């Protein structure tokens, strides 16, 4: 079962090691700007991996994944602000809440046989419903947002996750690597085989004894729980959150871009896609800044064009082709 690492040629394993060492050393080499970009890339790599479990593995298109990220952010932030409960305890609680929400939406959808476009719309509807609802909950700051008390920069407090970008960089790196290993384990165990079978052909999967409902709900719950942890980190990194930013449709789209560009259903795809997209969009921003242009919609416009081109010309994403070229044929897809 050494699909990903063991089967690699020594040359590739060495390259992987170099990349990993570079990633470990990055905060001490990179300047503050580059570090903030890397934090962003790791964030999208992680959250993309979470979404990929649901769509790439189990074949359920969620266009409302911001719901789970936002729930994670709000639950942990509210616990911290109102209850003095730190993020290390808050994160598992947030994950449990999100898993419950994911399972509940999955339960409703799959019990009533809602699939395809209807499922995608249902996920958007729940996210929007929650966004508007949260805008009217004063206890959570309403539309104006919820703010975490900010401490002076540079002070490191791991217990309450108060600190500079380096802290969050390592946290997100750990999450990105951890989620990669988790997804690899899931993918190569029975549940992963069953998810892919369901994605490929639900009727055939059923005839082989697979309980579609159970495995789909499981995918929704696991994916939601993973996504919520990204929300926890974002809440403590940015120290502020609003319903529009947390649950908005634009957020949901940003989450899914990485895996789509990198390679849906692959393990490396979400990570590769997140780094490529973040890198390109930051490059674009730097270019616009340098030429003195201020365009608020430029990044999103660029994402739209990239999405269009990738879907048209690279329907399987970057990774499968790249892997073939590097001689590492990945067989997930």
């Amino acid at each position, binding site marked *: 079962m050494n699909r990903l690492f063991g089967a690699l040629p020594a040359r590739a394993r060495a390259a992987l090691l170099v990349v990993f060492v570079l990633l470990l050393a990055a905060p001490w080499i990179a300047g503050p700007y580059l570090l903030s970009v890397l934090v962003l890339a790791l964030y999208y790599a992680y959250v993309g991996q979470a979404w990929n479990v649901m*769509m790439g593995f189990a074949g359920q*298109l969620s*266009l409302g994944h911001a719901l789970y990220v936002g729930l994670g952010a709000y639950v942990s932030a509210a616990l911290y602000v109102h209850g003095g409960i730190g993020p290390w305890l808050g994160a598992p609680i947030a994950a449990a809440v999100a898993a419950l929400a994911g399972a509940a939406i999955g339960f*409703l*959808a799959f019990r*009533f*046989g*809602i699939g*395809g*476009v*209807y499922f*995608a*719309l*249902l996920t*958007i*509807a*729940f996210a*929007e*419903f929650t966004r*508007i*609802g949260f*805008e*009217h909950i004063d206890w959570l700051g309403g*539309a104006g947002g919820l703010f975490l008390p900010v401490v002076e920069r540079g002070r490191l407090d791991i217990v309450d996750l108060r600190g500079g970008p380096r802290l969050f960089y390592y946290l997100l790196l750990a999450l990105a690597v951890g989620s990669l290993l988790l997804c690899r384990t899931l993918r190569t165990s029975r549940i992963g085989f069953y998810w892919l079978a369901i994605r490929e052909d639900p009727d055939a999967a059923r005839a082989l004894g697979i309980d579609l409902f159970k495995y789909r709900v499981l995918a929704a719950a696991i994916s939601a729980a993973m996504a919520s942890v990204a929300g926890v980190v974002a809440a403590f990194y940015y120290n502020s959150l609003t319903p529009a930013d947390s649950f908005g*449709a*634009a957020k949901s*789209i940003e989450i*899914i871009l990485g895996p*789509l560009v990198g390679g849906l259903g692959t393990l490396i795809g979400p990570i590769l896609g997140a780094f490529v997209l973040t890198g390109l969009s930051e490059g674009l921003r730097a270019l616009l800044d340098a030429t003195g242009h201020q*365009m*608020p*919609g*430029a990044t*999103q*416009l660029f*994402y*739209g*064009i990239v*999405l*269009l081109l990738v*879907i*048209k010309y690279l*329907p399987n994403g970057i990774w499968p082709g790249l892997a073939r070229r590097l001689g590492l044929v990945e067989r997930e897809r």
Partner: protein
Amino acid sequence: MTWDVYANVIIGGILTGLVYGLMALGLSVIFGVVRVVNFAHGEMMMVAMYLAVLGCGTWGIDPLWLMVPLAALLFVFGYALQSLVVHPFMTRPDHAQFMLLVAVGMILTNGALIVFGPDARGVQVDYALDSLEWGPLLIDKVRLYAALAALAVAAALFAFFRLSATGKAIRACADNYRGALVVGLDVRRLFALTFGCGTACVGAAGAMLVLLGDVTPSLGPAYTLLAFVIVIVGGLGSMAGALVAGVLIGVSEALAGLILVPSMKSMVSFGLLILVLMFRPQGLLGRSS
């Protein structure tokens, strides 16, 4: 609050709902025939609204007259989009089609943001504040005109699909794709025509909607969702269902704005959507499979 307040709000809701219904009709027609879900529907409408604002501001033309050139313009856009961009995706998996149109929507929204800026734009017409009085009822003239125009466009579309030879050919494609190919119908052209008709509805509805409210680039996704809600409540692919559900949503949003807080009104439609998806996924007037 007395009953006449409610009556006025309900009438306002019905009239606005008819315009919503026309927009949703476009989505429903596209889905019913081409089987593609236009995830950029509201974004196209937002662009139409900007064009109406521009036309009204530059040449001082009444947006209701702009309805005709805008419908024509959006028809051309829809026709080209379907035959050049969407058609090659007909055989691709559903999610690829969704994402393609999501990308188109992102391009439109942010293109508009770059071109027009983030501020709200609107139009001023001299009858903006006029209303017809009928006993205790006050009916806004703009709303009434917009609703009547929406009904006229919808009627024209119905007539096209029911009576014209092309309309019948399009319905044949919708009923039996392979059969249509076998008898030699030019499916690619008919699909493009249908997509164009759908976006023409959006163009007309956009010209009407600028009379009822301002436009910002971020309006697109909200209108896409609104169109989905209406079409799913009415039944995907059902033309009459779209209009009926448009009115239903218009009224329930207006009432929600009165009884609850105005900013919570779209929660009611999302709630309605969730309920319909759960208990009557084929929609209120949709055919059950």
